[in-house]
């Protein structure tokens, strides 16, 4: 598995820029031309102070927002020219999100929440999809809680449901925005460990935004963002 194997490239940024209030006197550029590659199996931390552009970058990579300039390749496919429907489809199939707050949907059970990305894409879940959801819930240590509603779970449990939900579509890239920021340290460690396991098991690239140095220290690679520029990009042992 060589570093330059194009088929293994999950994400590539080319001169990616993002400005807000374009064309107005208050126009401000938040990201100043970023270049970056992520390979399959990469387990990367994205760190930086508040206002350094981490969330903006994550939104761009997650196709939730559009860059002002530059190009973003997802699985070697340029994304800037995609229309909204295509972006939504790619987002649904290739990317898994875990947010700081679990963001589960209260009206649905735990299992339904996990299956949501599949149901949204293909409708009523098939037998094997349900089995997959159940086994993911079991892997995050929540078997037996499939029919609970999110508000009947603890914070750590909810976040583990969110992890299972992010992985149910076999995404090539898992984006996590301070996924443990809201958890006690025991739960945080557990959730982090889940990312680790899934990264090894499914080979999905993980990009983890975090403030927590204990967490970033355990990642294979740390990208530091300062004022919208990549200041350092270090791989670890």
């Amino acid at each position, binding site marked *: 598995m060589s570093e330059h194997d194009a088929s293994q490239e999950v994400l590539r940024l080319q001169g990616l820029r993002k400005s807000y209030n374009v064309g107005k006197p208050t126009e401000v550029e938040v990201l100043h031309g970023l270049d970056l590659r992520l390979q399959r199996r990469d387990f990367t931390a994205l760190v930086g102070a508040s206002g350094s552009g981490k969330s903006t970058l994550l939104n761009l990579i997650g196709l*939730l927002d559009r860059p002002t300039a530059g190009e973003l390749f997802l699985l070697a496919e340029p994304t800037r020219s995609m229309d909204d429907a295509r972006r939504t489809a790619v987002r649904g199939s290739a990317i898994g999100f875990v947010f700081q707050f679990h963001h589960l949907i209260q009206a649905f059970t735990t299992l339904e929440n996990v299956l949501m990305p599949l149901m949204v894409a293909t409708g009523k879940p098939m037998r094997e999809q349900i089995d997959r959801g159940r086994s993911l819930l079991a892997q995050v240590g929540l078997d037996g809680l499939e029919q609970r509603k999110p508000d009947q779970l603890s914070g750590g449990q909810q976040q583990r449901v969110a992890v299972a939900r992010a992985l149910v579509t076999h995404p090539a890239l898992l984006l996590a925005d301070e996924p443990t920021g809201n958890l006690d340290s025991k739960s945080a460690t557990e959730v982090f460990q889940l990312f680790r396991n899934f990264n090894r098991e499914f080979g999905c690239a993980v990009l983890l935004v975090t403030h927590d140095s204990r967490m970033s220290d355990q990642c294979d690679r740390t990208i530091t963002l300062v004022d919208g520029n990549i200041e350092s990009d270090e791989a670890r042992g």
Partner: protein
Amino acid sequence: MPMWIEWTIATKFLHEGKVQSTLILVGIAVGVAVIVFLTALITGLQSNIINRTLGTQAHIKVQPTEERNRILPPATGSVQLVLEDKRAQRLRSINNWQQVRDVLDTLPRVTAVSPVISGPAFARRGEALQSVVLVGIDAPRYLRIIPIQNDIVAGVFRIAAGDAVIGKQLATDLGLRAGDKLRLDGGQQRESVVNVAGIFELGVRELDARYVYLEMKQVQSLLNLPGAATIIDVTVDDIFDAQTVATRITRLTGLKAESWMETNAQLMNALRSQSLSTQMISAFVALSVALGIASVLSVSVVQRTREIGILRAMGTTRQQMLRVFLVQGALFGLAGSLLGGLAGYGLVGAFNTFGPKLFYIPVSPWLLVAAAGLAMVTGIISAAVPARRAASLDPVEAIRHV
């Protein structure tokens, strides 16, 4: 199943917001119940009035055109001043009425055609004298227009040579019973004596006091119009098409065709105003129901902004998001109208059982179907604005929303 996920999300959302959903459902149900009850009541009332009116008259009367004075054109170069009196209209036959009758028989929508000869006469018994209307009919055809045989109170309905069927009031005025003799005077020494075969009571004083039904030939000779028919009565399958058909008859035959709507212009005007006010009330109730649905869903979109953002992040398309809220609007409309429809039927039933009982309101299941359909469409339309807002939410903003 198409739109499975939209239905699932929509119903779960509705179920989760139970209090909101219940309140708006009750609101819709009350509105629909009012509309259903009002519509059934007014429809029943109007059809009752129309049936009573049309029970004793044809939908269309075809008559000869009026006679007019013809004025000799003035000699060139001279000016003519004319003081004109309208001509007296003598009783005249419809020219070639047999052919006209056959043509009318073939017209679409026409259900019955009956030539009639009708004119004034005196009925005499001893010293008593009553002015009457002679109506010479072709009995089998006439009965399809006004089924008098159902309103016979004495004797039998029999129209043969020398037989007459008269109204109850006339019989009372002249002291006649079935089987008695009656002398009819058509003027200018044209008299004949007929046998009262039957006595009818239609419930309309004017008819019960004046109508004398005879065979056509007898009236023709009494009125000195041999072989004539002065009116052709026509009925149509849909009474509200009468005007259209009348216009068509005028164009085809050149005769004067008057629909029951023209004959009863005032009644029609009253009915139309009544329908209009009912429709106005219904429209405003429907509007307030629609605004209720729209406002509940608007609030729901705001409350669910973050969930919408998450669903979008997980690959839900704008169209799916739009449909989730349109489905909610449709479900509100459907469920609310079914509840309201049943309540409306309950009201109608209560009215029929405990009301003044002047008339009966028929209950058509189609009213419920129509109400449900309309309410669903209203629900979808009302949901359009909130649904569009849900669909156009920026996922980045939506997820950050607290």
